[in-house]
């Protein structure tokens, strides 16, 4: 083994080497190569398959030809360049990718883009603009409902949906009486927002922001 002092790796070289090995590793994933751990004896997988899909995003119709493996999140970010929706865990645990599809919030990372033919999709970019903020965006700024901001687009898409869900009378785990319309309380907001993780821990300010917006819309019930 070479003595460690002979390894003349600069930080730059190390980064290049790292990138090279990362891209080498990515090749088998991009193609249809058998994976060592789980491949059946005779692999029947097709090579890359593409499929067309049309839906509307923030009111604009789009038509895409996509690898069938493309998640809705990747379609939005990589193909439509709507990078507001964030990829956090990519497995439905963090909620950073939350978007509103046909009036309901979903984790866009756990949904195939090609399954959304004809859907109406709203992302953070469709809720408001820097010049004309959605009331929830304004409330998050006012109440300091974020620190790094990475989870914020998902938090805001969820928060807007939470108010809508309570207005529709959809119950939650903390709703006391299932046969009575749920109230807009802090407990209800916290439970309903539990699918959106904020690693900076801005939760209490997020609850204040939602309470303010909901109060304005529901007559001050808190």
């Amino acid at each position, binding site marked *: 083994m070479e003595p460690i002092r002979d390894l003349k790796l600069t930080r730059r070289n190390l980064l290049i080497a790292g990138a090279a090995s990362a891209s080498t590793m990515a090749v088998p*994933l991009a193609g*249809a190569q058998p*994976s060592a*751990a*789980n*491949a*059946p004896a005779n692999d*029947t*997988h*097709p*090579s*890359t*398959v593409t*499929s067309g899909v049309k839906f509307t995003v923030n009111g604009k119709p789009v038509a895409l030809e996509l*690898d*069938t*493996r493309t*998640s809705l999140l990747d379609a939005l970010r990589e193909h439509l360049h709507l990078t507001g929706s964030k990829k956090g865990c*990519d*497995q*439905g645990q963090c*909620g950073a990718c*939350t978007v509103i599809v046909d009036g*309901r*919030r*979903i*984790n866009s990372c*756990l*949904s*195939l883009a*090609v*399954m959304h*033919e004809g859907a109406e999709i709203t992302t953070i970019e469709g809720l408001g603009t820097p010049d004309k903020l959605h009331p929830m965006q304004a409330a998050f700024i006012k109440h300091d409902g974020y620190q790094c901001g990475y989870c914020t687009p998902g938090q805001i898409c*969820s928060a807007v*949906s*939470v108010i809508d*869900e309570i207005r529709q*009378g*959809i*119950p*939650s*785990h903390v*709703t006391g009486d*299932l*046969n009575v319309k749920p109230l807009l309380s802090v407990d209800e907001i*916290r*439970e*309903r927002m*539990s*699918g*959106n993780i904020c690693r900076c821990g801005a939760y209490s300010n997020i609850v204040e922001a939602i309470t303010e917006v909901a109060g304005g819309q529901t007559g001050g019930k808190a």
Partner: protein
Amino acid sequence: MKAFTYQRATSTAEAAASAARNPNTRFIAGGTNLLDLMKLEIETPAALIDVNGLGFDKIEPTPDGGLRVGALVRNTDLASDPRVRKDYAVLSRALLAGASTQLRNKATTAGNLLQRTRCPYFYDTNQPCNKRNPGSGCAAIGGFTRHHAVVGTSDACIATHPSDMAIAMRLLDADVETVRADGSMRTIPIADFHRLPGNIPHIETALEPGELIISVKLPKPLGGVHAYRKIRDRASYAFALVSVATVILPDGTGRVAVGGVAHKPWRVEAAEQQWSQGAKAVADRLMAGARTTEDNAFKVPLVHRTLAAAMADAKKG
């Protein structure tokens, strides 16, 4: 993720026949569990059949006073349905205790029944797992087993079924209605739908190749006091350590089904015969033969105490 062909099903019988002809096919509806497993290459279908267009998305009354829940009814819609909230509250409560709203908005009734264990050794493709790779062994046995099964286990597998909804379905004696590859229909009682692991833990349900769930039938309402108590490591959005579903009737009898303790929703009808003797008698019979480890021995007394709490609550009214 492995590449796959994608098609939207337009006929139930054709979908079932096609899936049976091509064994490496999966049906997809909500996709919230399947896509996660496909990203990790634990599930590696070569073909996906999207069944969302087949129309099984309604909740309708049955002639015998029950409800027929379409396989595609989303968890949010099932939990919110006024008839379910009023007459099958334990089912609403179980659904609302599971996952997050984002997931419940996509997840379907049939998909919820078919979701796979969250055993971390099943998810870790570097580990042996008889469920993921039959015959490779079980890394969970002798590993960290806080979340694992304590009843109905085998030497091949100690994984739990993760569903909350299925616990309530088992309590209510629901029937799973399917279409088989030859186009015929059949009804599978929920008690027979999920399997214990035995020597073949990779076979998790009674479904045949290609067989497609089209609905779940709920018998006529039981009445009584319904409760679903879920004990977990945080107050929301976590899988159960133990969950206890109960329906307690005015005549002093009751039913109990338990989640988080077995490879399937755990209910022992003979234990319910002990109801008048109190929670300890019922839970002793329910959890008889439990095989625990240092990590998960707490689950047995936790079932006892949670059942006792549910029974005390019902008395209060």
